[in-house]
């Protein structure tokens, strides 16, 4: 049932983001749907306003409490905006009517950019699908939801739960230490610009290579490709003597019977040491599969969840005033946070839409931001989009990956947001 007044504690994964985010470290990610026809701004705005109250996890603004920041209800009318050229811009909590997500339109594309404190890819995808479904209905299309559209289902309290807290077990706490990882270095683009290099790959061709040739899942294949290419193309890697760590967020909902729309993911990590840089692709994919197998285990995941939540539950931390906590998060993240991973790769999986909706949607895309290089992938119909975003002026990883796919017989189609004139501008 819809409520007028509600509030949430920020979930365990999201707590740190409001403190550490700024124009340079935006912690936002982007989901977009490309439609067949051009977007009607007014109808889209109406669709968002109709759907938003159903998604309480999104209809919030951030508030400062004495001990913690929290989310409280936000009933202000949402305004959509025309998309700009900077991807994954920082959603300032005091702008945008207090909302922590942005809905953009451009040509025939609807884009949702979400601040990570609010939700993860799963929650945002449900929200975007519901917005687009409502948009198509408002345009007069007759649609059968086939039970796949969350926006037209009744609200369930479990959608807004903090599943980290629900699955916390104080007897299973795992202490976590992370050593520093190898980092990409290079000059950054000005004005917060991120270079997007999007590869559109055929699902049939990919399956043929990943499943038939290497007997792996697509996530394992992509992770292995990225590790292989980073190690091969980057001479700095074996000079730096730091391991390559690729962080791969995993959706925890299927493991813990959760339907929350808020953050509920943990990262898996694939680690390779500098002496592994001469490994061939078969050895790398074997290692990645083993590392996945070791980490994708309910008990291992639960002990990691408990480890994170135990930090939040420490009495000394709970009683620290919020502004001191925020300062500590900021300093801690500056010292440690950015050093522990080389890159992040997030695979949101294959998007299934109702048949009536599919004929209006040409493409679905998922782009993650990041201070260095971020890689996101998503599948829809016969394709998988593998999107690289980089704030660094360097395309060697993109080239290395696309060369690898070509050598494996996979056709590479690309889209880039970079223009020749940007050499001077950025």
């Amino acid at each position: 049932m819809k409520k007028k007044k509600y509030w949430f504690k920020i979930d365990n994964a999201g707590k740190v983001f409001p403190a550490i985010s700024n124009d340079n470290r935006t912690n936002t990610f982007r989901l977009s749907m490309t439609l067949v026809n051009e977007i009607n701004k007014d109808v889209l705005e109406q669709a968002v306003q109709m759907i938003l109250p159903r998604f309480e996890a999104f209809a919030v603004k951030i508030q400062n409490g004495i001990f913690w920041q929290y989310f409280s209800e936000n009933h202000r009318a949402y305004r959509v905006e025309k998309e700009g050229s900077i991807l994954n811009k920082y959603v300032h909590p005091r702008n945008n009517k207090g909302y922590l997500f942005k809905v953009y339109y451009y040509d025939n594309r609807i884009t949702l950019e979400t601040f990570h404190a609010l939700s993860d890819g799963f929650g945002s995808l449900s929200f975007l699908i519901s917005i687009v479904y409502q948009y198509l209905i408002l345009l007069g299309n007759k649609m059968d939801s086939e039970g796949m559209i969350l926006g037209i289902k009744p609200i369930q309290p479990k959608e807004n739960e903090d599943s980290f807290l629900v699955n916390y077990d104080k007897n299973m706490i795992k202490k976590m230490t992370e050593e520093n990882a190898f980092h990409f270095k290079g000059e950054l683009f000005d004005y917060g610009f991120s270079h997007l290099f999007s590869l559109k790959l055929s699902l049939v061709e990919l399956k043929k290579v990943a499943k038939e040739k290497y007997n792996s899942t697509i996530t394992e294949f992509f992770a292995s490709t990225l590790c292989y290419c980073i190690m091969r193309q980057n001479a700095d890697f074996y000079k730096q003597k730091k391991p390559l760590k690729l962080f791969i967020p995993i959706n925890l909902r299927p493991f813990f019977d959760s339907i929350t729309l808020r953050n509920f993911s943990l990262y898996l990590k694939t680690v390779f040491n500098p002496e592994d840089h001469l490994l061939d692709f078969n050895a790398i994919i074997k290692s990645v599969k083993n590392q996945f197998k070791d980490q994708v285990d309910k008990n291992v995941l639960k002990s990691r969840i408990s480890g994170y939540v135990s930090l939040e539950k420490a009495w000394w931390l709970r009683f620290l005033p919020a502004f001191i906590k925020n300062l500590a998060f900021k300093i801690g993240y500056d010292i440690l946070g950015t050093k522990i991973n080389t890159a992040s790769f997030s695979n949101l999986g294959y998007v299934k839409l109702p048949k009536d909706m599919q004929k209006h949607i040409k493409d679905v895309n998922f782009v993650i931001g990041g201070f260095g290089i971020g890689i996101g992938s998503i599948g829809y119909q016969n394709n998988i989009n593998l999107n690289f975003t980089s704030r660094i002026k360097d395309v060697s990883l993109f080239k290395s990956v696309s060369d690898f796919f070509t050598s494996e017989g996979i056709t590479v189609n690309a889209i880039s947001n970079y223009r020749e004139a940007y050499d001077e501008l950025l």
Partner: protein
Amino acid sequence: MSYCNQCKINYHSNQKKCVLCQQKLMNSSLKEKEYFPFFRKKVSIKPFIKYFNYINLMSILISILIDLQDLSLSFSLIVSISNLYAIALASFIFRREFWTFKLSKIILISLLTLLLITLILQQTNLVLDFVLPITLLANLLLFFIIFITRKDKPIDMSLHLLAFSIFTLLPKLLQQLSLIKVTLPTDIAFYSSLSLIIYLLLFYRRLVFEALRRQFHI
């Protein structure tokens, strides 16, 4: 669609050269669709605000330093307050924030201004007997009017009002410590704030407790 012969990539976006190898693309003369808006530099107002704030802060520092040569603070306080007001006004105009947040700042600065001006006049009794209770009372009234008229943020406003009501009890405490001689303004402020606290706890108890629960969740 344009094609890079060297990288074997089909480009769907509007490129003339391959992003990866800089080679000229085949069929690149064909007008492709623009997938992303072209980047244009925007003139940012942030550096101007920073510069403006810097000038004002320097003005405060210099005037206080000049004033301190006579071992007293007089005109520099007025200059400083004016500079602070200028900074606050500039930030209110150029930073898009919630107006209640702006209002709280204005109230706070007004209160400090009044107190400082009366201190400059070296009228401590005037400050404690009249200025402090009357400004607190006036601001309490202002908050109360906002609370009654603004129905969209009742939870936040109820807690602000309660906190400010409690703060308005301060002159009474000073009176008990014999620092305040004229009792009438202090008494009016005290009874007004007390009745407001009772009013809030009687009629808006649920809102206040909800706000407290949100604020103090540990």
